[in-house]
């Protein structure tokens, strides 16, 4: 049968269509047609155009090459010119492709149309979005003053908008969970002891040349930064002995020569006892300590009485093992890598002192500025660029969040917890607007319930985001940021053992209506009326930065996008000097004493679990960067959900089996999403463990939603670090809920009398 037309339209339909006068607006003609060259195309990424850039799947910033075919990113590899990672990238690095092409991406500016937190949005234009943000910033500043504006930030994407907040004069122009929920206490301890940020974004610890590597809950191998892991593996290959202190038998512990399964919260007791033993047995580097350190007597005094026997009892460890650790370190000094650690905001009160103890231990063993020990950065020269913003420092208010609560907070900005508190209470002054960039604060700052309540009290909240995270859902305006694969950032220099200079540059144009952070900040500044950003685009200031290194972007790209420099990590003893006031390593810190804080480490017991509960501890999955990658399809396929590690003896006592699904209830009655059990002897019976980042609560994250449980939603209480106001993550306790039954967990390793027990004051039925 042959029919000329299947579509029979009525006269009225034809008339309706004719009345519209529609023309195609979808296409423009090209000069000539091209046929598909697919048959001639090389398979996979072969023959692809290669563009050097820098990864941002985590903060480590490995140099990469984006492979482009047919206008599409088909593969990411390490930049072979990089001495740090070479052609290698980790699982996350590979999966940047999936971030770029994630259908859940925020594609256009969005505006909230329902209740705040309800997540009802409508797409709006960039003009409308930016006008709305600018209007609200000006309104809040005028009504409540400059400090009513607060900015939560993280990473390269947040840097330009930070300039705006700084120029607006608020003291809260930066409040980074990267410090207050991660490396802040560690960074402070090392800055004050050694005069430089030995651990911040990076850790200057020469594991590749070490004879002993000492890790206090550093989960290298689960915490993957390619060059760092390579150095660690190099050290082990060379025969370095590995000592691991951790309540859990981590990947690192599995490689250890000596594993110390410590009672959570007692690390400083162990370190003090080790110091005491090393000092009293003359195992320390006397020459280094006498000539290049100050405060030895105070440290000696502080450690006195902290015997191995005492520590063994407090820490629930074998005294022999502690001694063994001391001897291993002392016999191999100074070539010992005492890792400074990161993500170390665990117990609040003692966190800075614990890291100070690690720094002191390095110094006692002379392991500073030597192969195998802590080393010094090699600065790589580049041009200095300013954006013409905030020419003078802003005045802080009479009662300052940065200055008046934690004496060393201002080194890092405004403590996140204090911003949340001030927003909730209006004290010391009201905070009425939050800008958020590069960080999912609801899954990062402890007590998300408090954070969400605070958000309800804001006049306005906006974020720049790539994915529809929990934080985006609470925002009034969402600005779609370009991924790292679609933008330029500043020139990056790597000042570790293999120094280099490189630049992040787009491998593809921004998709949809995503815009680069520089563009967004520049346009927003214009609308607020700030004279900011005296460059028209990123390339202009990058050229300026490169000029300072005798380069241009074209020249750099001709050289594979990366140039290397000679390292200067070690120091001869005769030239040894550090950047502290005295020029010496400060074993005791007067600045701390001046603020009535401990100038030398002191063991402050953190309360033990209440009866029926165990401590909740957390860590990382090697294929994820916390919540940021949970929606990434490839990584999700590798590790779709976390599991709850529970001690096998404990599990047996209460009839729990491996693989069973349970819910956790914390001391305040908050419950987790369901999580499967991993029953194992590889964790102490007084703690349970899960990897952080799972259990997304935003339904718009279609891959990560409700996959596993979020430790964050069980952290409803935290202790402040008294030095900078960082908040603790290991001070919450849980028990198990199986079906409808709440299971109290028996105590198999009771704490000694020296450790107080946490008292539950509020029991709730919150969920």
């Amino acid at each position, binding site marked *: 049968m*042959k*029919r*000329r*037309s*299947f*579509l*029979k*339209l*009525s006269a009225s*339909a*034809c008339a*309706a*269509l*004719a*009345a*519209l006068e*529609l*023309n*195609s*607006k*979808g*296409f*423009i*003609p*090209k000069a000539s*047609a*091209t*046929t*598909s060259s*697919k048959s001639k195309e090389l398979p996979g990424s072969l023959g692809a155009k290669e563009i050097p850039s820098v990864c941002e799947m985590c903060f480590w910033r490995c140099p990469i090459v984006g492979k482009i075919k*047919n*206008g*599409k*990113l088909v593969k990411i590899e390490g930049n072979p010119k990089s001495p740090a990672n070479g052609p290698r990238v980790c699982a996350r690095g590979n999966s940047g492709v*999936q971030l*770029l*092409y*994630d*259908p859940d991406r*925020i*594609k*256009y500016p*969005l505006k909230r*149309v329902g209740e705040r937190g309800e*997540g*009802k*949005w*409508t*797409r709006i234009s960039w003009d409308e979005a930016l006008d709305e943000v600018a209007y609200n910033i000006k309104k809040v500043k005028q009504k409540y003053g400059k400090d009513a504006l607060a900015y939560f930030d993280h990473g390269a994407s947040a840097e330009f908008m930070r300039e705006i907040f700084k120029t607006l004069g608020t003291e809260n122009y930066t409040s980074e969970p990267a410090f207050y929920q991660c490396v802040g206490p560690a960074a402070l301890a090392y800055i004050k002891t050694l005069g430089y940020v030995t651990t911040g974004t990076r850790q200057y610890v020469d594991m590749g040349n070490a004879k002993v590597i000492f890790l206090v809950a550093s989960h290298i191998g689960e915490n993957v930064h390619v060059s760092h892991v390579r150095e660690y593996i190099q050290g082990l290959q060379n025969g370095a002995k590995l000592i691991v202190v951790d309540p859990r038998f981590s990947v690192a512990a599995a490689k250890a020569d000596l594993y110390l399964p410590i009672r959570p919260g007692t690390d400083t007791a162990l370190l003090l006892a080790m110091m005491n033993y090393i000092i009293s047995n003359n195992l320390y580097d006397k020459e280094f300590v006498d000539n290049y350190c100050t405060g030895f007597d105070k440290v000696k005094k502080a450690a006195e009485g902290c015997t191995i026997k005492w520590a063994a009892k407090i820490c629930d460890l074998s005294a022999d093992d502690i001694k063994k650790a001391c001897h291993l370190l002392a016999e191999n000094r100074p070539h010992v890598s005492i890792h400074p650690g990161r993500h170390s905001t665990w117990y609040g009160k003692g966190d800075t002192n614990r890291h100070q103890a690690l720094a002191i231990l390095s110094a006692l063993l002379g392991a500073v500025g030597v192969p195998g020990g802590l080393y010094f950065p090699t600065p790589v020269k580049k041009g200095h660029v300013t954006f013409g913003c905030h020419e003078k420092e802003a005045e802080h208010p009479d009662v300052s969040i940065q200055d008046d609560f934690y004496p060393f907070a201002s080194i890092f900005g405004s403590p996140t917890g204090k911003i949340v508190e001030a927003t909730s209470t209006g004290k010391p002054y009201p905070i009425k607007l939050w800008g958020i960039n590069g960080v999912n604060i609801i899954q990062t700052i402890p007590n998300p319930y408090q954070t969400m309540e605070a958000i309800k009290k804001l006049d306005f909240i906006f974020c720049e985001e790539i994915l*529809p995270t929990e934080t985006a*859902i609470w925002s009034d305006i969402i600005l779609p940021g370009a991924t790292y694969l679609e933008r330029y950032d500043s020139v990056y220099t790597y000042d570790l053992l293999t120094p280099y200079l490189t630049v992040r540059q787009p491998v593809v*144009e921004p*998709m*949809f*209506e995503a815009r680069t952070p520089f563009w967004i900040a520049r346009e927003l500044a214009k609308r607020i009326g700030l004279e900011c950003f005296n460059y028209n685009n990123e390339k202009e200031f990058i050229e300026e930065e490169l000029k300072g290194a005798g380069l241009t972007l074209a020249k750099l790209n001709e050289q594979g996008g990366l140039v290397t420099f000679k390292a200067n990590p070690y120091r001869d003893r005769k030239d040894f000097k550090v950047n502290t006031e005295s020029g010496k390593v400060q074993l005791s810190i007067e600045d701390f004493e001046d603020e009535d804080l401990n100038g030398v480490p002191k063991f402050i017991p953190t309360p033990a679990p209440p009866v029926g509960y165990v401590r909740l501890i957390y860590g990382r999955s090697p294929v994820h960067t916390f919540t940021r990658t949970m929606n990434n*399809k490839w990584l999700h396929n590798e590790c779709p959900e976390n599991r709850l590690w529970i001690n096998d003896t404990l599990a047996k006592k209460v009839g729990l089996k491996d693989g069973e699904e349970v819910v956790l209830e914390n001391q305040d009655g908050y419950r987790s999403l369901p999580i499967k059990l991993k029953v194992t002897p590889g964790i102490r019976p007084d703690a349970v463990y899960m990897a952080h980042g799972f259990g997304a609560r*935003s*339904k*718009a994250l*279609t891959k990560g939603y409700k996959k596993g449980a979020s430790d964050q939603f069980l952290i409803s209480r935290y202790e402040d670090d008294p030095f900078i106001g960082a908040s603790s993550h290991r001070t919450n306790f849980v028990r198990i809920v199986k079906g409808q039954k709440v299971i109290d967990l028996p105590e198999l390793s009771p704490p000694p009398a020296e450790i107080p027990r946490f008292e539950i004051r509020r029991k709730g039925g919150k969920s």
Partner: protein
Amino acid sequence: MTGIYCVIFNLLANAFCYPSNENTSDKFFYAINALARDLGFDTFDEKIDQELLKEHYTRLFINNPFCETAPLYASFYSSKDNLLMQGARDEAKAFYQRAALEPRFEKEPEDFLPTELYFIAELVKKGDVKLLVEFLHHIIGWFPEFKKRLQGLNPHPYYSILAEITLVILNNLYQEVINEKA
């Protein structure tokens, strides 16, 4: 093949674009309803608030905080991992190149539904039956999945009906050009 398809596909393409004054006029809704009536579908109430429609469009096709969306990209439905910029996008791009046409939605992947519908209008206008058959084969390969997903999201009646009539019209045109070739 008649010029009416050219008008219809321009209309459908426009209807799947974000709501604006252009695609939410009374005349526009009336034309969609007229098509629905002729094809035997229910009609929708033509008094639709543009702002409300924007909210629905965002919820259904862009980002939905309550559940999944029905993305307007062929790759999402034809790749096993539901990703963007996969084989279907390359296919669409190759079609446009063969027709010496370049999409105007340069920030959208080439397999964006409105782009594909506009392309059909272009092919109809040019009378390029060979390419049209191939392209219809491409779009009919994924559109039903899109429609099914959309209908599972409690769509606004306007988008529900729009998807239904689009599929019928695609199939009609496909049958028609196949028969014309035969």
